[in-house]
């Protein structure tokens, strides 16, 4: 019976430690010079593959990465939920104040030339007007509060927050 040589795949499996019948392999290698030679070739290749290549990064690599992250964070601050909430609240109250001050009918006239969209807008304004007419609120004071809130959010977002983040991003 002719001697069956090991395939490249079998040799690699053997060297990777994925072969269960290692004793059979060892026995075969003792009697087969060709396969022994092939194993030695692959062993040399494996050893060379495991040699570490020189890895050269600058000594300040980590510092540069951190400074880049800090710079990015200070340039693009994001909105927080409470800011969005206050902005929406402020806009809503502001709109209600305007409606209250100039009157719902005058507001409706603004949309008369806009066809179907104007009709829908007038209806929406009428609903809002009726709703606010039913509750007793000081709209002038609310408008002032809304303006103050919007101003504070604006100030915080564009001036205070970027500075604060730049300082506190990494404590």
């Amino acid at each position: 019976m002719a001697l069956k040589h090991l395939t490249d795949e079998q040799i690699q499996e053997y060297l990777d430690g994925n072969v269960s019948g290692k004793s059979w392999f060892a026995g075969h290698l003792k009697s087969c010079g060709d396969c022994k030679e092939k194993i030695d070739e692959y062993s040399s290749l494996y050893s060379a593959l495991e040699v570490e290549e020189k890895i050269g990064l600058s000594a300040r690599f980590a510092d540069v990465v951190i400074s880049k992250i800090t710079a990015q964070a200070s340039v693009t601050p994001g909105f927080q939920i409470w800011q969005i909430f206050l902005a929406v609240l402020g806009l809503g109250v502001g709109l209600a104040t305007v409606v209250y001050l100039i009157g719902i009918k005058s507001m409706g006239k603004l949309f008369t030339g806009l066809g179907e969209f104007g009709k829908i807008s007038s209806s929406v304004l009428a609903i809002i007007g009726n709703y606010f007419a039913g509750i007793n609120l000081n709209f002038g004071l609310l408008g002032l509060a809304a303006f103050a809130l919007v101003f504070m959010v604006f100030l915080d977002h564009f001036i205070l927050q970027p500075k604060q983040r730049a300082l506190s991003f990494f404590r």
Partner: protein
Amino acid sequence: MTNSRELIKKIISGDTHAFKSLIQDYQRLVCHVIFKMVTNEQDREDVCQDVFIKVYQNLSKFQFDSKLSTWIAKIAFNTGINYLKKQKVPLFDDVSGENGALEKYWSEETSPDGFTQERDLTCRLQHEITKLPVQFKTILTLYHLEEMSYTEIAEITGLPDGTVKSYLFRARKLLKEKLIAKYQQEELWH
């Protein structure tokens, strides 16, 4: 894994030393991936920086469903691929598993033969590896230098486990054949 959890928690809370520690721990891994993909020495460090910036930006999304090293290596691999696409470097496409596709790619590769005078096997091998497609280089590196499993490498490269194993075996066989053919066997393998 517990240490990774603590480290990530500290980084998210803004601990700069923790993030520096992470960079130091995984710098070698990122370099192994990127250096095999990016040949331009000036760009290498920039790409490595991009990798760690992405790691920081996405750290809060890390769900611990894999090792942190696997997750970071995946970011590094994808960053490297994006870099190569921007540089319009042709990527090896072997989805069909066509026999001889790797050999064909190799023969089409015309990188300068700078190490032919090198007598050292490792240097010669490194030169031959540079001619391999990027997926093969990455698989060889992650398997032999980072000692990662087929499954981990599959997760990093986005290839099926079987393809990873097939690429690894084909790459090693081809490297052996090329080295033997190029340099005299008795001189090289001792």
